[in-house]
């Protein structure tokens, strides 16, 4: 999705966002969110186009996109399972939940099931240590995950 | 403990010598007696040996290399060898530690790229000039990869030219370690 292929609606949203900030660089995250809403992920071409629009080096956009786990640089399935594997969650058994999910879905972390329904990733802290081990599916948080609860959840989502 | 001290004092103080010692004559005779005793004893043993007797007594303590060799100690520093990886290639990564530490400057390494980026570096050539080597074993101690050892127990590598004294990587790789057995035992070599 290069600049030419940006929809008019997206372009107008971007210019609206840009107008909000005195520093164009500051508009980067809202613009990236807008782009992800549009196509579900942010392609390398989109990154380049956004860099051009904001007027910053393309590598800065790449750094930003790769830094945040909320920003996806490749398409995800219908359900994007993000397991926290940071300290608190791992101590409480996050790795078993991840293993259970991998077994059930037949994928490794970072992969998408063949039917494009599930994408499984492990992420650093979700900021929900009080709920650990925590799992984020799309925009919803699930607390105190264990292998059984993951299995139940996956059955439900199917 | 006291006897060596006394002997020292006697040596330092000529007064302590007795009259007969000062004439030297008895002492000279004692010296001659000692050496002559060895002479006749060994002569006798050798004659018996010629007759096939007394084979268990040695007329000469010296090891008759190369007919006889002693079992070398595992600590002995002998001819170098380069150790190999499982696939037979040298373990050496051409880090030049041995070349750097070598006090005789007898190691010459040229480094080159290894196809595997995890190994990254390998020796294109690895020469040891044994004509210069002083067998200090620093190269073995300094090697971070255990790539060079001096446990072949090969000691006879003399050659007729200086060039032949330079062992290249292939010769060094072909050397094998020697199993250590019977340290100090004298063995006949066929």
């Amino acid at each position: 999705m290069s600049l030419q292929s940006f929809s008019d609606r997206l372009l107008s949203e971007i210019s609206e966002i840009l107008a909000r900030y005195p520093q164009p660089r500051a508009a980067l995250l809202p613009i990236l969110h807008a782009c992800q809403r549009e196509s579900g992920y942010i392609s390398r071409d989109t990154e380049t186009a956004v860099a051009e629009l904001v007027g910053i080096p393309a590598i800065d956009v790449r750094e930003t996109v790769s830094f945040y786990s909320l920003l996806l640089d490749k398409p995800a399935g219908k359900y994007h399972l993000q397991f926290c594997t940071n300290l608190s969650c791992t101590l409480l058994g996050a790795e078993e939940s991840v293993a259970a999910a991998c077994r059930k879905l037949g994928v490794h972390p970072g992969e998408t099931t063949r039917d494009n329904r599930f994408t499984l990733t492990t992420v650093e802290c979700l900021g929900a240590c009080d709920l650990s081990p925590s799992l984020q599916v799309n925009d919803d948080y699930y607390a105190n995950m264990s292998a059984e609860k993951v299995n139940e959840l996956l059955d439900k989502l199917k | 403990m006291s006897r060596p001290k006394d002997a020292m004092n006697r040596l330092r103080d000529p007064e302590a010598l007795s009259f007969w010692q000062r004439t030297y004559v008895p002492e000279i005779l004692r010296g001659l007696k000692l050496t002559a005793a060895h002479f006749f004893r060994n002569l006798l043993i050798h004659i018996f040996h010629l007759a096939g007797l007394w084979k268990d007594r040695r007329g000469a303590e010296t090891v008759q290399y190369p007919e006889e060799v002693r079992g070398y100690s595992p600590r002995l520093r002998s001819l170098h060898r380069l150790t190999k990886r499982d696939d037979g290639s040298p373990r050496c990564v051409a880090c030049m530690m041995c070349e750097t530490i070598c006090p005789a400057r007898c190691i010459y390494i040229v480094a080159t790229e290894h196809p595997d980026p995890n190994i990254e570096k390998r020796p294109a050539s690895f020469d040891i000039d044994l004509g210069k080597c002083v067998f200090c074993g620093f190269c073995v101690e300094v090697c971070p990869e255990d790539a060079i050892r001096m446990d072949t127990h090969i000691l006879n590598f003399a050659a007729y030219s200086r060039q032949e004294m330079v062992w290249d990587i292939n010769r060094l790789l072909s050397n094998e370690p020697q199993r250590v057995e019977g340290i100090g035992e004298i063995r006949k070599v066929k």
Partner: protein
Amino acid sequence: MPTLTIDGQQVTVSKGATIMQAAEALGIYIPRYCYHPGLRVAGSCRMCLVEIEKAPKLDIACYRQAAEGMVVHTTTEPVKLARQSILEFLLSNHPLDCPVCDQSGECDLQNFYMEFGLYQSRFLENKIKRRKAFPIGRHVMLDNERCILCSRCVRFCEEVSRSHELGIVNRGDRSEIALREGSQLDNEYSGNVIDICPVGALTEREFRFQCRVWYLNRAASVCPGCSRGCNIELHYNVNRPHQSGGKRVLRLKPRFNAEVNKWWMCDEGRYGFEFIDAPSRLQDFEIRTAQRTVVASREQAVQTLSDWIGDSIDRHGSQSLGIFLSPKLSNEDLYGIGKFARHVGIDCLDFRNPSERPGYQDDFLIQADKNPNTRGCLELGLYRRSEDSGGWMAGEIQRGKVRVLIVFLQDLALAPEFQQVLGRLERLVFVGSNRNGTAEIASLVVPSATYAEKDGSFTNFEGRAQRFERAVVPLGSAVAEADLVASVAVSFGMQREEFERERLLSDLRREYPFFDQEALNPPELEWVYQTPIGQERL
């Protein structure tokens, strides 16, 4: 102007100066990875933590500004413990491949670990594997496992070269240096990232496995690549010639000079040293007749040259001699040649090769004039002012006025004006370091020493005379130009002493104000990127 105390010593620094700068003013070295004086402060490595009295915890010296009455300690136990912990952390994923790493010997990670490290490792976990040893540009090799993410290279590409090729992508222990999509690190200054990389993550492709750095000797020099005259260090290996296949000069590194090149140099200059050990180097005196070329001794060659000059003056006067100089010669060589020319009355002198065209230039270091000493030639007046280019000399040859021409370094055979007329000369003498078209047709070829093989000075485009020192001995029978002229001049009643280096220098200083004392003090080597490597003791 705050005054502060560091390790018991008082120092007053300008407002806004950091503790790091204050310590440096006192000669106290604080270890650092991400800090580089030529780059924006990142404050990410935490290696420069120091103890500040009345502060609740340690603070980084590279960012914390000096304040009035501040009392700083750089060697106390908490500071040492902090450094130890930082090093332990940095090494948690750093591979221990020092044996194969080109950086070892000049690696800050090695050096600081030797000084402050935690020698008993507590690390049991598996190290993270990353991509190793892949080229990211024409000159640079990247090893992501070795990277400690100090971001010096990223900041260099942002701030100095402004080409923005590099960035740090991903988060946490997955972070690594990456190239911009579809690009290579191939800007005009890419070699500098190798210099500023404190570890072996960025290494030089050309220098790769050529020589371990502890075998290198260093000499202070001046880059001859363009008229900027960047201060450089020549790194040469004469101790272990087999390692680099007999090549002596192996790499150039920039040397700090606040007014000329700061900490940097361009790739063109950095890799422009190949000619020093190139196969095209002239190593013998050659006397060529129509039939054959013979190798001569220095004495024979000097005798021949003196005979030809004397003979030409006797038969046709000193007007029949021409000298074509080169702006690649040092001030001392030029001055010596000029002195001799004045003595025997040669005024047919120039240095401007009509075939030379201005090269690439930018607004940072690279100059269009690719000769290091054009300004020196101009200041010394070794050209005909009434002409725009050296082409006039071709006319003189054409008219039969100039019969013997001595060419220094230049390839006149490339210039159309000269191509036609060189054949008309009675004698063509070529003095140069490398073989070229002119050397092929010259009747006497004199091998000369390159800038790495002699002492001297270049005057840069701003008129700054800068001294360079000899690194290696001249190859083969090569001689410095001033020495050659001295040997010839003896036959013409001059004293050899007049061409001695000290004499030439003092004469130059007396006659030419641009040649000032200050800039010509012996250049000092300063290792600005890394802590000093041990000098070759072997």
